[in-house]
Structure formats: C-alpha cells, structure tokens
C-alpha cells in the first residue's frame, strides 16, 4: 500500500524535463532565411537570454546555428536561420532537427522539426556553412525530473500505471499455473480454488491493462486500436483466459471442473509466454523495444523513472496477490455453506 501511495505521488508530482512542443513553420526552402517560432514545454527561455542558443541539425555535427534567438516569454521564442542553398548530401527533402540550449533548462531536441526543400539556385560554396558551427558546451538540467519525449509528453507517467498492470497479470497467471500444477499432483480442491481466484483477478488486471493502453494509444498513436502485434496478442491471451472461465462455469461437477481447469490453465500459461514475449519481438510494433528487446534497458527508462517504475511494478503485483487472496477466501466461504 505504501509503495503504491509513493508511486502515485511520485508518478504525478515529479516534473517533466523541458522540451519543445511545436515549431512553425514546419517547412522551408534552402537558400533562404527561415524564422522559426518555437513553443516550449516546462521551459524557462527568459531565465538567461544571453546563453539561449538554437541549432538546426541535419545529422551528427552537420548543423547550422541560429544567428539570432529572441525569447518572447518562458515558453515562446523565435530563432532565425540562414539555410544554405547546398546540402552536404543530396535528397529530395531534408528533415532537420531543432536543438535548443540554455543555462537553466539544458538541451532539448525536436526531431524532424522542419522539412527543407532544395533551392532553385545552388551556390556550392555555401556547403561549408554546414560545418562551421558545432553543438558544444550544452547544459544539463539539475534536479529530479522525468525525461521529455516528443508525442508522449506527460503521458510518459503512464509507464507507472499501464505497464505494471501487465506485470501483475503475468505474475498472477503464473502463480495460478503453479497452483494448477500442484492440484494435478495432489488432487486437493483447495489448490483449484486458489488458482481460479488468481485467474479472476489476473483477468481484471489484464482488462485494465488493455483499457488503459487503449486510452494511451488514442492520444499518442491516434487510434484506440491500431492492430499492433502486442495489442492483438494480449487481447488473444485475455480471450483464452476468459474462455477458461466460461468453460468452467458451464460444467456442473466440481471435480471435473477442477481437473479441466488445471489442465487448461497450464496450457494457457504456456501459450501466454510466446504470445506476450516472443511473437511481439519478432515483428515491428508500435510498442517500445519490439523487434528487439523491450524497454527496461536503454533510453526509454532513465534512472529517475526506475526509482518509481520498479516500486510501481512490485506494488501492483502485491495488490493483485492480496485481492486474489480476498477472492479466494470469499469463494471458499461460499463453497463451505
């Protein structure tokens, strides 16, 4: 309980790092001046205007620096660039990332901020402009904050609420399969009751994971359901378990019920592993880290987030186990009458 209180407090009140929300215009032509209006998030552009700098980055060190940056307020600034008429590489359009830096906020990046179309008249000597400036001496933001990710913005906090639902569901189903195995070995009806209680609560957590995921997806991927592998596979997994409960309620004899449930449950858990862990890793997915390894390492979860994420996972798992204990005890009381 304390863990979950901590998770809700820290998950909500630790601020986000500054970031860039919007840049207008989002396209321009090479060989011309480009004045960008930038909207920041949690930013403090006015804090130290002398150190406010902006760059447009093509790749790596291929950047041009803004020759003038004007902050209007803490969240709005204008930056003017001269886009050279010649690029070091040849493409039909050039996506440029915007990099901002100031002493208080530290550096923030917006990838693909503007798209530049090639110039009609090209001056080959301007190519060297791309290598004149460098992004250097960037600042770091002090204090405890969550990273700012484009599109995600504040919804990065959902990592503490949506993801632990699935962790809890998997643990509940796993423990349930363990009790089913025990029932197979001993034939004690008590183990059957325990495993069924765990499945019931696991289903609740799974549905919560699905619903919260859909809500999150609507506002980041623009659809409740985008037929993403992980979405589909988790829905199938839930259906398998739902079918188990339906099958159970259709049987009259409690011994038969218990035996079939135990067998089906172990089979369902064995299916759960490829459905949730193997198939999504084999194809592309909108979920982070698929087609590779999920997000526990690497950039998606920094150390500040880990301090909340792991307690969240443990907290929700314990909550699930506790609720399933309650369900088990009520079912048992009901059965004894």
């Amino acid at each position, binding site marked *: 309980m304390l863990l979950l209180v901590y998770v809700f407090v820290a998950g909500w009140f630790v601020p986000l790092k500054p970031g860039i929300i919007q840049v207008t215009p989002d396209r321009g032509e090479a060989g011309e001046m480009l004045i960008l209006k930038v909207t920041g998030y949690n930013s403090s552009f006015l804090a130290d205007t002398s150190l406010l700098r902006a760059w447009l980055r093509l790749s790596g060190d291929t950047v041009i620096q803004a020759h003038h940056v004007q902050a209007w307020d803490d969240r709005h600034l204008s930056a003017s660039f001269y886009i050279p008429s010649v690029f070091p590489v040849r493409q039909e359009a050039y996506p440029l990332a915007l990099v901002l830096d100031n002493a208080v906020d530290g550096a923030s990046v917006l990838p693909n901020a503007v798209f530049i179309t090639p110039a009609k008249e090209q001056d080959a000597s301007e190519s060297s402009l791309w290598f004149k400036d460098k992004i250097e001496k960037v600042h770091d933001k002090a204090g405890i904050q969550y990273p700012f990710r484009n599109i995600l913005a504040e919804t990065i*906090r959902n990592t503490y*609420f949506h993801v632990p639902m699935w962790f809890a569901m998997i643990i509940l189903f796993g423990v349930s399969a363990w009790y089913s195995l025990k029932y197979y070995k001993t034939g004690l009806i008590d183990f059957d009751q325990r495993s069924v209680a765990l499945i019931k609560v696991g289903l609740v957590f799974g549905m919560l994971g699905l619903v*919260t995921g859909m809500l999150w997806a*609507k506002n980041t991927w623009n659809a409740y359901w985008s037929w993403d592998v992980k979405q589909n596979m988790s829905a199938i997994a839930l259906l398998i378990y739902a079918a188990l409960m339906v099958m159970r309620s259709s049987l009259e004899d409690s011994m038969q019920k218990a035996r079939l449930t135990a067998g089906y449950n172990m089979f369902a858990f064995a299916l759960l592993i490829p459905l949730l862990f193997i198939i999504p890793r084999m194809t592309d997915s909108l979920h982070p880290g698929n087609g590779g390894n999920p997000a526990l390492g690497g950039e998606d979860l920094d150390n500040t987030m880990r301090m909340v994420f792991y307690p969240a996972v443990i907290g929700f798992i314990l909550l699930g186990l506790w609720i399933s204990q309650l369900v088990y005890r009520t079912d048992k009381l*009901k059965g004894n*009458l």
Partner: protein
Amino acid sequence: MKLDKSYHISGLFQRRMNLKSKLFLFLMFAVQLVKANGDVAPDFIRSIGKIYVVAGVCLVILITLFIYLVLIDRKISRIEKRQKHE
C-alpha cells in the same frame, strides 16, 4: 440455480456470474465514456502536455479496482447474511 431478480442485466446469469458480468459492463461503459470525451474535446484531453491521459488512466485503474473490491465486499455480506439464517 436461483435467479437474482434485483439485477436486471446480470440476472440473466447465474448468481455467481454477477461479479464478472458487472465488471465487464463497467469496463464497456468506461471505454464508451472515454471515447465520447475523445470525440468531443480532443484539445482538452491533449492540453497541458496530455496530462489528462494520465489522469484518465489512473482513474480507470482506481475506479475499476474500487468497484471490484466493493463487489467482493457485497459478496461477503451476502454470505454472512446466509450464515445468520442457518
């Protein structure tokens, strides 16, 4: 099996199905509600760095778990009542 007449929708099921069917119905309503919100005011939900998405997710989790616990509580009360009669 006795049918529970006080619950019109879940009364179609046996008594022990009440809990699950209610929960399922609630989730359906929650999705509908969220959907309606998304259609009417996407700008509101996505304002302030989409913080309302986090609020929605937390509310869905808290409300669902709360209702689930209340349902368990009512089940226990029913058992207690029956125990008294015996």
